[in-house]
């Protein structure tokens, strides 16, 4: 049983490692995928409030024009940053579908992470503080180790099973 568990552990760790390595060594990005990615980084300016590639206005000439501009820039060999900067220059910062990671916009990205970490930290601290306190109710488990409690539960279930 122990050997099987060891093999399982190693196999799982190996799989995780391989996944991580494969993820880090991401492969190339064909033009279609690049167009798709860039198109999802921009908002259509026709007033639909949707991502450029998802504008649903019937016969929308704005999104058509913007797509043509993007294809043209890609054909010129512009980098992603240059293409996006070109759109920001022409349509303003609201053309980007997400805040950038510069200036005040950084706050948009940082805050959820800060709140997440702070909340997790707070929970751990609260649990630790609670654990240190003496249990209030006389019926609490006191110093009984969890293994023993599990054993009691198992026996209780067996004895009361239908």
């Amino acid at each position, binding site marked *: 049983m122990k050997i099987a568990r060891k093999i399982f552990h190693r196999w799982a760790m190996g799989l995780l490692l391989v996944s991580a390595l494969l993820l880090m060594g991401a492969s190339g990005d064909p033009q279609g995928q690049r167009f798709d990615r860039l198109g999802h980084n921009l*908002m259509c300016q026709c007033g639909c409030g949707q991502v450029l590639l998802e504008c649903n206005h019937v016969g929308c000439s704005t999104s058509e024009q913007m797509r043509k501009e993007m294809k043209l820039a890609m054909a010129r060999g512009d980098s992603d940053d240059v293409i996006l900067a070109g759109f920001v220059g022409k349509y303003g910062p609201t053309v980007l579908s997400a*805040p950038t990671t510069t200036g005040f916009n950084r706050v948009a990205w940082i805050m*959820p992470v800060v709140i997440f970490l702070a909340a*997790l930290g707070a929970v751990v601290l609260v*649990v630790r503080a609670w654990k240190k306190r003496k249990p209030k109710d006389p019926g609490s*488990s006191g110093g009984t*180790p*969890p293994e023993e409690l599990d054993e009691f539960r198992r026996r209780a279930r067996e004895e009361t099973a239908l």
Partner: protein
Amino acid sequence: MPQIGSFTLLLGLALSVYAFAAGLFAIVRNDDRLSETARRAGIAVFLAVTAASGILVYAAFHNDFSVAYILHHSNRALPGAYKFAALWSGQEGSLLFWCWLLAAYGLVLRLRHKVDTRLVGHASMIMSAVQVFFLVLVNFAAHPFALVTGAIPADGNGLNPLLQYPEMVIHPPMLYLGYVGMTVPFCFALAALIMKYPGEKWIHITRRWTMVGWLFLTCGIFLGSYWAYRVLGWGGWWGWDPVENASLLPWLTGTAFLHSVMMQEKRGMMKVWNMWLIFSTFLLAIFGTFLTRSGVVSSVHAFAESNIGPYFVYFLALTFATCMYFYVRNRSHLESEHKLESLISRESSFLFNNVLLLVAAFAVLWGTLFPVLSEWVTGHKVTVGPPFFNKVNIPIALFLLLLTALGPLLAWRKTSTESLRKNFAIPAAIALAVGAVLVAMGYIKPWVDMSYFYSLMTIMLSVLVAATIGSEFIRGGLVIARHNDSNVFFGMYQLTRRNTRRYGGYVVHLGVIVTMIGFAGVAFYQNTEQELGFGDKMAIGPYTLVCRSYTQDDKPNFSSEWAILDIYKGGKQITTMYPEQRFYKASGQPATIVANRSTVMEDLYLVYTGKNPENGRPIIKAHLNPLVWWIWAGAHLILVGTIIALMPNMQAKRKKPSAGDGQARAPAEAKAENQAAVEAGGD
């Protein structure tokens, strides 16, 4: 008729004010007779608001364009169902509908006052206060019976074409039932806090009401997604639009409450937390309504900008201040009876689950409001769209899935790591094996893109959850099957009937993971667009589309044009599809009717996007969206699970003593057995 409508609304307001004031005095003076008059006034509010709503619907059906609301949201040729739906299609009508739903919930609450007359008396008084606010809105800020000035037009402007779909007839009522439904638990929670209600009875009542509200909100959100998918024609079902986000916020906090409330019921813990979760859920439901209707954030779904924003701000501030005041005054009543003993326990899993749900709610709220904040701080508006919400929320959702898998394996108070490892090993092995197979077979290449990696993780974690829940059902089912000499499936059925809340909850979790698998398909969506003349072909995935013809139709409400496309797969024609484009005459707006062929594996989704202005050739956009079917299947499972959880538990029948048994076992013993069966699995 509009004058009668206005009168009934004023009458409703007067009755609500009386119900609130009389309820308040009755509590202060401990006067039962006054309390009874307040209750009856509350019931009468329902009659008055029902009459007002009926009159507005009547005006829509009788094309009374002297009423500005009917003029702007209906027209003569509009089909009957949409005339009825006009009630909630605009600002004023939907607020009236909100009032009516609130009055209807109030009616049920007041008719069931014998559950606990004092508690219901307090809750009813709070509900009347909320009712007063909404009736003030419809009487003075957004009057649904406002009359047209000058000559009355012969026909109305018609209903927004995007709203003329069957899903839109039921989606808003469901959503409003959810939003308004959250008022009831709020009223009970605040009532319990005000009166320092002894015991946990109020929490049982509140939990059931919260589940009802949560169920409607869930249905509303899924129906909204379904409508967006089938109607908007962009091939997606969730766009992280501010209005969509507004519906998600109370859903997230409501979900957190439904989990953490178990800690209060079982262990007398987290009373403050639960109280504030319910307060937050109600405040967020109101805040969402404020966002939708005030014009603070721009949204495709939002109602026209109006002057009702400040009303909501004052109401939110007043509600928060009231909650805070009573919390500070009576907080000693909310002390925990027990303390958390271990990090590896059911309690801590609920705690982490709550934290993650609240962080998700914060991230959604933050992203929704950041454009406003950015404009305020820097003077420039920015867009916070899907890429932001996906990047922030997907990792949180994955953590939540992991907790959903771990939760059922953890016991209350403490679980040993050995026991956890023992119960977790097989489900984890199954999940890893499924992931390995998906990668090895080349279905998912997680190294190509982060979205593929997320998809793989979602599927693996969903399998993990399914395996842990499956093991719970099988383990409990086997215990009962052994006792009843039946099979394991009957055992699982019995198990569910005996503890509907727990096993209904597991079915909800199954629904969630089925939905998540559907979400995982997003990474593989593909689309293509092409001009398609007669006989032309276009290909997407394994499908080939051949244009057979185009045809036109003319109806009183709209004219339309269809493409007739033969669909081939593997060289064989499998079906014919008809994407359509409509032109609504009254509003002068075009709209698309998507043609969708949905299978378990993928949706073939076709949109007739219009004609090329240069050469007049029709353009067809084709989407191939894998696993969308799973999203709607998951929604049905969530619905079924919640209904199961709302059902009362069935008591176990005692086994008939056989001749050899000697004597029948004592009732206490049978009860213990029943409990053991119910608890089998780790509680």
